[in-house]
């Protein structure tokens, strides 16, 4: 059924462009029905899952690799699945309104639904490889979505940046998951958990950890891989709302929570996660305060939230995981509402710049209300769900005595309060501005999403028992042990409440002194001088230049350099082989009288070769080559190879004829050497080296005995079975006639080729290059 849901969404995705063309006004409502039905199915699984019975299903995929499309729905997966399908449905409705009349609206639906399916698969997958497949699919679909405004160069850059950062994480994940499978011997998460192998003490644990954390941190934009997330805001707002609040960026957090029971709880795990999470949270909140673009502010607060979530998984205690589940839900709801609300503001007033907004309340009351509720939740004020989430965090971190983490959280949360103020107070209640004057309220498509999500933030805050069971189940799954959760809006005067009060006070202070806070932050940033985005560009252009250098150096278009590389390679490989492996022999030379003739032929061959090198004119060269060729032919005749000898003679003649025919039409050889002295020495070295190596191998081979069985067989059967007395010819036309068959195709093709070369011309080559 999970697979069915995924496939149904994919199918709907591919129908979307057509549907949009046929029913432009209705398509998004209709499409939203698909994820809504999925959400409904997931909702009715809640009681069972909360009771501790996960839903399992499996379809075989590549059994020879042990890969199956297997899914497992436990608390954690179910919480994510509900968010994905539920928010997803409203995002679809929202984007229908947001992109109304956009020429590529249908394609947008295609991409976002494909993303939805991928994300759903990712959070429900049980099989390691399936998990990876869906993980990569989210990267690809988000690439398409971030680059949706495709004629804008910035969008394209952001899309490639996101693809590379998350793609790099994907590479690490692939290696990590395969190692995980190999280390545990199992290829599904359930089986790994059940197998009881303690991976924490496995020799591969450090490698595994590095790889998997790399994957999770890149996906969830943890410092120092955070820079792609704010850039990804170049995507249309529905994408930001969906991918960068509720879903994709949480994939990394999901992975960490999922692996926490198997890999978590060690020192490295703790330190890596808490440090990365803490730094990210602080960074995100600081940057949020500095920004003036509504979407940028939201993007940075998302960073902060992701940091907090990672930090909580790093702490990994019972309480931390409860807080994790609570904060996860709270954040998804309010962030979704805020993004969609921001989009609505943008849509209604034409700007997202906080400085240009003010007094929108009168014009956009509904949007204002939903943003207000969501902002309250973000600020962690009662009676919102955000308050509960934050309380859970404080309770645990204070209880656990992690005071550094606590300080970081306190700072981060108070800046959330300030950020909430920036988002709501000035734009809606401030002095009306010019942009606000022309603003208008958005339609139902744009308001449905914010309404629902803001409403849920409030509802769950007032009635925490409602999500409590599911949150407990999610926390249990992430902890790997059953946990109970008891949520109340009022839980007495606890230290956590005190911390909340401090947070709010600090936040209000920050908001009041926003200008000085910004100056301070700017100063800090100037001191630290870290701009990851610029660093990324530097890295890429460095890589690009390296690529250009390497390619330009190796592939420089000069044939003699290519050949020099190749001959050097041959000499190096053969030379080292002979040197390392040995096998060199120096045969004793015993010259006999009959060798004298052969020896003089050898001298002639070499002489011809030298002559060809030293020739000053073409005719000299041809003459020298003819000397070599003819002495080779005589050599064949002398050593009992009459067929070869005659053929060599004829081929020499023909080659000479063709050579002369062609040379008549070519320029003279330039006089003297065509290489400088130094180059000539290098080439000479290569030549002598290669000649030596070839001689050495030949000598070594000649030192081995040669089995003549094959030739004996030919000699014995040539006449009796193949009816020929010339054994060589019988080999050519019968024993190994198949060689000759290939050979006549070569000569035939060569004949046709020469013809085609000279006759089939496309005319003067067209000026293809600018």
């Amino acid at each position: 059924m999970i697979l069915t849901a995924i496939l149904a969404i994919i199918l709907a995705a591919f129908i979307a462009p057509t549907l949009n063309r046929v029913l432009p006004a209705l398509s998004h409502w209709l499409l939203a029905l698909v994820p809504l039905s999925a959400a409904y199915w997931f909702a009715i699984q809640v009681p069972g899952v909360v009771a501790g019975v996960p839903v399992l299903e499996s379809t075989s995929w590549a059994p020879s690799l042990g890969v199956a499309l297997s899914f497992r729905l436990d608390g954690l997966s179910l919480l994510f699945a509900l968010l994905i399908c539920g928010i997803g449905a409203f995002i679809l409705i929202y984007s229908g309104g947001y992109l109304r009349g956009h020429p590529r609206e249908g394609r947008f639906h295609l991409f976002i639904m494909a993303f939805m399916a991928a994300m759903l698969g990712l959070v429900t997958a049980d099989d390691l490889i399936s998990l990876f497949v869906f993980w990569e699919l989210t990267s690809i679909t988000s690439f398409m979505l971030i680059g949706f405004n495709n004629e804008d160069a910035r969008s394209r850059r952001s899309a490639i940046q996101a693809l590379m950062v998350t793609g790099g994480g994907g590479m690490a994940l692939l290696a990590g998951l395969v190692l995980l499978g190999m280390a545990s011997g199992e290829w599904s998460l359930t089986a790994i958990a059940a197998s009881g192998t303690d991976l924490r003490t496995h020799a591969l644990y450090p490698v595994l950890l590095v790889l998997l954390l790399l994957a999770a941190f890149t996906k969830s934009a943890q410092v120092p891989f955070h820079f792609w997330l704010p850039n990804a805001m170049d995507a249309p707002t529905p994408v930001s709302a969906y991918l960068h609040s509720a879903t994709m960026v949480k994939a990394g957090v999901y992975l960490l929570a999922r692996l926490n029971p198997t890999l978590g709880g060690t020192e490295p795990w703790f330190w890596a996660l808490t440090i990365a999470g803490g730094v990210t949270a602080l960074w995100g909140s600081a940057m949020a305060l500095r920004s003036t673009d509504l979407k940028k502010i939201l993007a940075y607060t998302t960073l902060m939230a992701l940091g907090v979530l990672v930090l909580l998984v790093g702490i990994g205690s019972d309480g931390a995981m409860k807080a994790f589940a609570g904060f996860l839900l709270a954040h998804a709801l309010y962030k979704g509402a805020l993004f969609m609300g921001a989009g609505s503001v943008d849509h209604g007033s034409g700007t997202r710049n906080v400085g240009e907004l003010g007094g929108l309340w009168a014009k956009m009351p509904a949007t204002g209300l939903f943003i207000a509720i969501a902002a309250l939740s973000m600020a962690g004020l009662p009676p919102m769900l955000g308050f509960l989430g934050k309380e859970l965090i404080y309770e645990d971190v204070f209880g656990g005595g992690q005071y550094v983490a606590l300080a970081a959280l306190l700072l981060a949360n108070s800046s959330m309060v300030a950020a909430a103020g920036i988002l709501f107070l000035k734009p809606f209640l401030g002095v009306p501005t010019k942009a606000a004057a022309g603003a208008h309220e958005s339609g139902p498509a744009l308001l449905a999403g914010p309404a629902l999500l803001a409403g849920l933030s409030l509802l769950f805050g007032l009635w925490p028992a409602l999500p409590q069971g599911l949150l407990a189940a999610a926390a249990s799954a992430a902890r790997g042990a059953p946990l109970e959760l008891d949520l109340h809006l009022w839980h007495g005067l606890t230290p956590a409440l005190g911390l909340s009060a401090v947070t709010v006070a600090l936040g209000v202070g920050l908001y009041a002194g926003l200008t000085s806070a910004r100056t301070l932050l700017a100063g800090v940033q100037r001191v630290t001088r870290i701009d990851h985005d610029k660093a990324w560009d530097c890295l890429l252009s460095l890589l690009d230049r390296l690529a250009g250098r390497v390619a330009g150096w190796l592939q420089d278009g000069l044939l003699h350099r290519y050949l020099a590389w190749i001959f050097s390679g041959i000499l190096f490989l053969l030379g080292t082989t002979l040197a390392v492996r040995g096998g060199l022999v120096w045969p004793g030379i015993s010259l006999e009288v009959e060798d004298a003739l052969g020896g003089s032929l050898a001298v002639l061959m070499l002489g011809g070769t030298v002559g060809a090198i030293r020739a000053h004119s073409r005719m000299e060269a041809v003459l020298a080559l003819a000397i070599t060729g003819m002495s080779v032919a005589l050599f064949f005749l002398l050593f009992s190879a009459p067929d070869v000898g005659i053929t060599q003679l004829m081929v020499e003649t023909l080659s000479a004829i063709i050579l002369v025919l062609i040379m008549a039409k070519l320029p003279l050889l330039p006089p003297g050497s065509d290489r400088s002295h130094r180059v000539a020495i290098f080439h000479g070295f290569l030549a002598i080296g290669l000649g030596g190596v070839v001689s050495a191998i030949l000598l070594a081979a000649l030192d081995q005995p040669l089995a003549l069985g094959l030739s004996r067989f030919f000699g014995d059967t040539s006449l009796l079975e193949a009816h020929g007395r010339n054994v060589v010819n019988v080999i050519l036309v019968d024993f190994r006639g198949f060689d000759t068959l290939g050979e006549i195709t070569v000569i035939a093709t060569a004949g046709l080729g020469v013809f085609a070369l000279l006759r089939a011309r496309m005319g003067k080559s067209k000026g293809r290059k600018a």
Partner: protein
Amino acid sequence: MMESLILRTGVRLLLPLMLLFSIFILWRGHNEPGGGFVGGLICAVGFALHAIAFGVKAMRDMLRIDPRTILGTGLLVGITPGFLGALSDEPYMTAQWLGALGTPVLFDIGVYLVVVGAILAMVQTLMAEGED
């Protein structure tokens, strides 16, 4: 084209001899040194000399057949005898003998024709290049 009388007379005398010789070489190749290759090469050299002496047009007129036709025929003659093995359910290129005439001999003729055709195609186009 070379306007040498000696060469022309020589070639005029030599060409028929070379053609005959090449066929002789082809024929005896199965038992004595020779065969399709050498035969074909000798034949081609003969024609090439003729072309050098009298020009490519003269050669074309004398030959009448396009070298590519010779080449195509040669390929087919080379390839098809091998299929005769199928008659007696034997693999490709299994020799079938009928007295002194066997498929290997046919194959050798194919080789001869391909060599002649290919080389003449080369020589003809190369020489025509200068004269056109």
